C-alpha cells in the first residue's frame, strides 16, 4: 500500500498578520514557514502506520504544489521519515488548482491512501482534500480523527455534526484528517536529516489548469470596543448585564 500526504506550506501559527500594499497582501518578512499543522499530523499518522509490525504500507510520499521556496518543508517531511517527495512547480493559485494538480500526480502514480489536513492554517479552505477525491471519483472521509489498518482493511473514526462514526472504506480513498489523528508531530532526528539529503525530491511541471477563484484583498477585523469591567464581588451583575444590555442570555 502506498500513502500520499498532501503538504501545504503556511506561516507559523503564531504569526501576527500585518497587511501591506493597500491590503493586497500580508507582510511576509520574518515569517517562519512550516508544514501546515494538520498535514504534519497526517504525516505523523502515516509514519506510525508504516512502522506497525507487519504493516502493509510500503511507501509514504509527500506532495506540495508550490514554488522552490517551499522545498524546506518537503525536506523536513523527508527528514521525519517520508520516503520521497514531489513538488509541482507552480504558485498555488486556489484550492481547485492545487487539487487538480495533485489529482494528475495521483492518477499517474496510483496511491491507495491520500491524506490531507482538514484545513490549512492560512486560508482555512478545507477544500483540497474534498475536491481531489471528487476529481479522482474516489470516496472521501472527512474530519477523520482515527485511521487504522486491520487485516488490510481501512477503518476510520470520523467526527460528524452531532456525533462520531466508525466506518470502513474501499481503497483508493482520500482521508481528510483533523485533531486526534496523531498526538505530537515528529521532531526530525539527526539521522533523519542526514538521510533526507539522499531521498528523492522530484519536481514536476504543472498541468494546464485554470483556477476558479482568486484572492482580491484583505481586511482586518474591527477592533473591539473597550472591555466593560465588573467587580469580582458583584459578579452576579454580569449575568444581568448580559441579559438586559447585551441581550445574549
Amino acid at each position, binding site marked *: 500500500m502506498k500513502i500520499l500526504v498532501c503538504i501545504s506550506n503556511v506561516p507559523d501559527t503564531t504569526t501576527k498578520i500585518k497587511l501591506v500594499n493597500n491590503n493586497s497582501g500580508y507582510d511576509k518578512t520574518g515569517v517562519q514557514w512550516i508544514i501546515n499543522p494538520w498535514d504534519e499530523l497526517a504525516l505523523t499518522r502515516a509514519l506510525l502506520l508504516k512502522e506497525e509490525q507487519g504493516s502493509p504500507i510500503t511507501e509514504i510520499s509527500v506532495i506540495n504544489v508550490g514554488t522552490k521556496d517551499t522545498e524546506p518543508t518537503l525536506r523536513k517531511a523527508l527528514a521525519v521519515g517520508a520516503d520521497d517527495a514531489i513538488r509541482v512547480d507552480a504558485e498555488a493559485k486556489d484550492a481547485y488548482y492545487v487539487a487538480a494538480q495533485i489529482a494528475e500526480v495521483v492518477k499517474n502514480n496510483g496511491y491507495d491512501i491520500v491524506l490531507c489536513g482538514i484545513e490549512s492554517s492560512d486560508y482555512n479552505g478545507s477544500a483540497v482534500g474534498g475536491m481531489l477525491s471528487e476529481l479522482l471519483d474516489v470516496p472521501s472521509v472527512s474530519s477523520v480523527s482515527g485511521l487504522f489498518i486491520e487485516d488490510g482493511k481501512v477503518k476510520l473514526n470520523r467526527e460528524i455534526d452531532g456525533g462520531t462514526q466508525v466506518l470502513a472504506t474501499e481503497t483508493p480513498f482520500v482521508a481528510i484528517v483533523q485533531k486526534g489523528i496523531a498526538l505530537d508531530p515528529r521532531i526530525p532526528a539527526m539521522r533523519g536529516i542526514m538521510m533526507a539529503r539522499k531521498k528523492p525530491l522530484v519536481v514536476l511541471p504543472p498541468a494546464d489548469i485554470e483556477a476558479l477563484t482568486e484572492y482580491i484583498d484583505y*481586511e482586518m477585523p474591527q477592533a473591539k470596543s473597550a472591555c466593560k469591567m465588573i467587580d469580582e464581588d458583584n459578579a452576579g451583575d454580569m449575568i444581568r448585564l448580559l441579559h438586559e444590555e447585551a441581550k445574549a442570555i
Partner: protein
Amino acid sequence: MSVLVYTENWEGKFKKLSFELLSYASEIAAQSGDQVVALSIGKVGENELNLLGNYGASKVLAVGYDGELDNQVYTSIIAQAVEKEDATIVIMSDNFTGKALAPRVSAKLKAGLVTGAVAVPASFDPFVVKKKAFTGKTFVHVKVNTAKKVISLIGNSVEIKETANAISIEKFGATLPEAKTSVKEVNRLTGRILLTDAEIIVSGGRGMKSADNWAPLEEFAEILGAATACSRPVSDEGWRPHHEHVGQTGKIVAPNLYFALGISGAIQHIAGVSGSKILVAVNKDKDAPVFEVADYGIVGDVQKVLPQFITAAKELKANS
C-alpha cells in the same frame, strides 16, 4: 435560475443554521431576482418543511433518504438538485457536513468555492465574497470567476430574517449512487448541546486549577443551556476530553456568547473564538490578553465568580 440551500436537520427538526442559510440566500436572491430553493435530506415532517418558507424559501426539494453521511452519495444528491433547479449558487454551512460536501460539489460542478464566508457577497459582478482567513486573524475577499458558485457560511454570520412566503414542497427522488464507504457504528451526542451549534459556550482554562473544579462550570452551562468547552492546556492535561478543545488547532466556534473562564487568551485560543458575538472573560491577572478581546470582564478568581454566576443565572431563569 435559483439559489440552492443545503439545509440540515437534527432528530427531525431543522437546525438553526438552516434558517441562517436561507436568510443569507434570500439576500442574494433579492439582488439577483432568483428564487430560493431549499434541499432537505432526511426524514422531516411536512409541518417542519413548511417552516422553511418563513425564512425565504419558495420551494423545498424533500429527499426522504436518511442514510448515514457518505460524502459521495450526498454530493451526488446535491448536484442532481442543482441541475434540476438550474441553481447558480449553492449555499451550505461551514460545519463538518459542509466541509465534507462543499469541496466535492464544487469540483463536480466546476463551480468556484468560497469556504468560511462571513457576509453576503460584497458585489455580484464581479462576484466577491468576504471569508475568514488565518483562523479569524484576518479576512480575505475572494473573487469567484465561474458561473456556478458554492459558498459555505460560518455560523452566526448573518441575522435570521423571517418573511412570510408561499412555499411548495416537492418530493425529490434523486438517484442514489452506491456508497463506497460503510458506516459500522454511530455515536450520537444526544441530549447534549453541540459545541459547534451552541448559542452559548462556557469554556474553562488553566485558571480552573484542576479537573475536579469543573462541576460548577457544568452547572452554570446547564442553567444557560450552553455547551462546555476548554482551552488547549486543559485538554492536554487530560482535565477535559479533546473534543471540547476550542482554538486554532481544536474546534473553531462562533457562538452568540462565549465565557472564557480562567483562560489567559493565547493567540491560538483567541483565533478559535474570535467569531463570538459577545465574549466574557474572567481571569485573576488584570493584564491577561483575553481582556483585550473581551466585551465584558471580571478580574478575579473563577472559583469565587462562578457561584455568583450560578445564583444570578438561576434567578434570571426563575423570573422569565
